[in-house]
């Protein structure tokens, strides 16, 4: 009995010691993947390029705020996380950080004082970045970015998520990979694409599913779950692999166009992906966008022919596509336009068909396809309803400067009508997704998803 109590007491003490150690013993920083030569310096422009590839601006810049000065709200299931100031301001930014401090934040998710970053910062992915790119990015942020004296907003999540030390345990689960990049050794372009996708591009942060612990299920390309689809901020981040996925249905050129210009022969980039195009992908070289597209094309093992260019200057004329077998019945029903049309179909004819056509095929580069469009058929109905109500836009890019705006129909269609129309769209041309309710529409009317 006494012995048992002693053992118990011992265990309690051990537990307390472990807990205290867990909370207070500083995290061991991961060693760099590569040792750089002492005189190594980044190539001119490399750091800014890495910053663009990493899409730092999208999260670390508030709407109408100073570039990289933080203050953007990142909505998470645990509550709002505020992005921080990463300008070299000593008071509010990262001006006092050493490169080792910076690397630790990027690959271990730990700040110089040992605080754990919330994994809204995709250090799970940045952990795969090359040492050279981390150094180039650090040099750029410190030397070329204007310090901005904007104080950080404090993120205050509810219990237990406000106990940041808990992230330490989470990291044991989430950071089993890396550091550094391991190519699959396919073609040069695919390997480059793999690096951009896995590392700086942090595509898995949205496009991989999350496991029970909310860690990315599939961080590297050797994992079968990698990029097999996720949900972010009420948007479906569709699967980028497998039959029916965009990379398998589109050509490499079309995928590269989508990445670089936010538009291609099939679709447009909206919501979160629109931001990625606007702030990151449009600034990559053509070779890199082709590389990403090539890697995605070959993700399931297909051999990939790498094109040399995409989204070239016009004149480019693209005929509108006829209805395919899956869409034929719907196209015929809309063309006949009999008086007994279902309400959704009638609403489509009156409001949508001029651009998206009775075929649901739209027009290349300008009016997206609605047939098989994941935004139409996704598990998340918010984006579809929001686009119908409030419209959508594709921002100007260098190769396609047109600011493409779809108008909203909030002033023209009631909640019931939008629900009818959305439900119809989700089942037209062979689309096969569930109904949308007027309540879903009402929610979007009040608080749009984008």
């Amino acid at each position: 009995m006494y012995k048992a109590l002693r053992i118990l007491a011992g265990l309690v003490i051990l537990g307390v010691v472990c807990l205290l150690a867990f909370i207070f013993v500083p995290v061991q920083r991961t060693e760099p993947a590569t040792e750089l030569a002492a005189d190594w310096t980044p190539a001119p422009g490399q750091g800014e390029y890495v910053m663009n590839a990493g899409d730092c601006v999208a999260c670390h810049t508030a709407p109408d705020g100073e570039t990289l000065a933080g203050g953007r709200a990142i909505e998470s299931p645990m509550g709002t996380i505020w992005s921080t100031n990463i300008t070299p301001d000593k008071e509010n930014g990262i001006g006092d950080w050493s490169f080792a401090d910076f690397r630790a934040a990027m690959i271990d998710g730990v700040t110089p004082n040992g605080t754990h970053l919330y994994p809204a910062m995709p250090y799970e992915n940045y952990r795969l970045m090359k040492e050279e790119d981390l150094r180039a990015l650090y040099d750029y942020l410190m030397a070329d970015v204007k310090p901005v004296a904007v104080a950080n907003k404090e993120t205050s999540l509810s219990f237990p998520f406000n106990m940041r030390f808990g992230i330490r345990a989470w990291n044991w689960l989430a950071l089993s990979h890396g550091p550094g990049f391991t190519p699959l050794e396919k073609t040069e372009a695919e390997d480059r694409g793999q690096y951009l996708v896995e590392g700086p591009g942090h595509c898995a942060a949205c496009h991989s599913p999350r496991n029970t612990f909310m860690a990315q299920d599939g961080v590297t390309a050797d994992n079968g779950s990698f990029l097999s689809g996720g949900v972010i901020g009420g948007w479906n981040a569709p699967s980028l692999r497998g039959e029916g996925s965009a990379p398998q249905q589109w050509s490499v050129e079309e995928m590269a166009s989508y990445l670089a210009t936010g538009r291609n022969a099939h679709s447009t980039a909206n919501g979160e992906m629109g931001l990625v195009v606007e702030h990151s992908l449009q600034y990559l070289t053509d070779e890199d966008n082709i590389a990403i597209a090539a890697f995605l094309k070959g993700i399931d093992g297909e051999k990939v022919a790498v094109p040399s260019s995409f989204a070239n200057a016009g004149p480019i004329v693209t005929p509108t596509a006829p209805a395919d077998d899956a869409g034929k019945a719907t196209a015929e029903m809309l063309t006949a336009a009999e008086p007994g049309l279902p309400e959704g179909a009638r609403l489509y004819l009156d409001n949508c068909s001029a651009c998206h056509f009775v075929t649901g095929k739209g027009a290349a580069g300008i009016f997206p396809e609605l047939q098989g469009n994941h935004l139409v058929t996704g598990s998340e109905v918010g984006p579809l309803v929001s686009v119908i109500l409030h419209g959508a836009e594709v921002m100007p890019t260098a190769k396609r400067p047109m600011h493409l705006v779809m108008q909203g129909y909030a002033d023209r269609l009631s909640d019931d009508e939008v629900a009818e129309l959305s439900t119809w769209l989700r089942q037209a041309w062979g689309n096969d997704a569930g109904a949308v309710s007027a309540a879903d529409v009402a929610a979007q009317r009040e608080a749009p998803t984008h």
Partner: protein
Amino acid sequence: MARQEKKKDVVIVGLGWTGSIAGIELAQEGLDIVALERGEDQSVVPTFKYPNQIDELKYGVRNTNFQHPSRQTVTVRRNEGENALPYRVLGSFLPGNGVGGAGTHWNGLNWRPQPVELQLRSHVRDHWGEQIIPDDMVLQDYPVTYDEMEPFFTRFEKVAGISGYAGNLKGEIREGGNPFEGWRSEDYPMPPMKTTYDASLFAEAAKKAGCHPFPAPAGIASQAYTNPYGMQMGPCNYCGFCERYGCYQYSKSMPQTATLDALKAYPNFSYRTGAEVLRVEMAEDGKTATGVTYFDHAAQEEVFQPADIVILSSYQLNNVHLMLLSGIGQPYNAVTGEGVTGKNYAYQMNGGITLFFKDKNFNPFVGHGANGQAIDDYSISQIDFGAEGFIGGAYWRAGTFNGQPIRSMPLPKGTPTWGAGWKEGIGEWYGHAMSIGSHGSHMSYKTNHLDLDPTYKDPHGRPLMRMTFNWNQNDLRMNQFQKRMMEPIAEMMGADSWQAGFKDVGAQYDVRPYQTTHNTGGHIMSDSPTTGAVNKFSQAWDKHNVFCMGAGNFVQNTQYNPTGMVGGLAYHTVHAIRTQYLSNPRPLV
């Protein structure tokens, strides 16, 4: 004391077709450019959004998309003896306003002139002798030839996104195209639009009569299109709301679909709206301009914008007005025939036949502004002027372009114009009428010109511009010729009834009914400073850093809608600025 803005390399006055073309091409040279636009900013969404824009009463009848006469207008008289009165209600022509200008509300008919139209005096002299030129006609050759202009027409057609089928591809005449057009180095960028029923009926009849029908060239997208600037158009849905409206569907060639966003992407370009240019300011030596003074509508004050190059790219009437107010070119004097600015104002001479078929349904609400089949068999290059007794010609076109209920209700003569009888007529005939239009040339005359009005002033205290204009017997005879040629073809078509509407000899200009917004001339191009206001590069003869773009350059009006030539001349001008002027600013001729 006017506010002064920071000096720019280039100031552009008016941000429509030619202003945006000048902007984008000169921005590529790295020049620091500002465009000043009198009206408001306009985008497809929200400005032209569906269904708000297709409101016939608001935009088609009350003309909300246009320059409002209370802000700016002209006075009009038919001859020197009349007292010119202000054009207070828009009727005969509809000047545009706002970003995109008249390029937003045109029909999309994009033509090139025939080669002989650019050398018309020589053509007449060589074939019939100069004695057939009426005394009061001021017939001149353009100082540019079709061959010189061809690459620039092609360039504009690619940028604007034109649908059509070439009839003369590098000299090879192609079946189904226009055999009488000037040669094209390339086919149209897009295939032609679909043909509506009325147009195919006309084409069939025209063919039987030995004519050569072809699809009218359209500034309307027949397919998805990306232009050389990466700008985009979506395929047209044939809704029929082109003329008087901005296109909500990204389908019509407009600066909004062809140039503006690409231009706005240049960091060295900026534009200000609500910036109404009042005059061009001149250097003390009188040989160059120093910039422009504009009225800033937001700040309610005058602003001086200094610049090294001034590009006048506002509507033709406004360009001429600014030149008269600023002393660019000597004002034209109709009595002595001396002077150049305001000279050779010209217009368009149109007519047509409407046919009624009880048993045919034309679905007139399906169409677009440039819809239809056209023929050029009675065009300038095909007519024996000596035998016919006039100089000029026309193209014809049939094709529904809208079924809008307020303005598009053609009824057979004799139908009551109001009340129950009118309603009955509408019920009987709506959708059963089609028309064939003749769109004819208009020559320039000593008597038709523009100058400053001695009486009326605008809100800024500037004299209004005065238009002295009347129809001339030469063009009316041309119109009657077209009527005589068209009537047998209309008769062949087997309508239940048809009626012709062609102005006859003796007709007087009536400023009330809509005719066309093809106001041309006033700052015509010429090969000598005594015969025109600008040289072949649209450069003011007497102020070498002022370039005047647009239909004001037209020596006499062609038989076609002017946009294709306006666009071609704009590219011709900016090419000269880029390759000849910037390195050594000077008179280029």
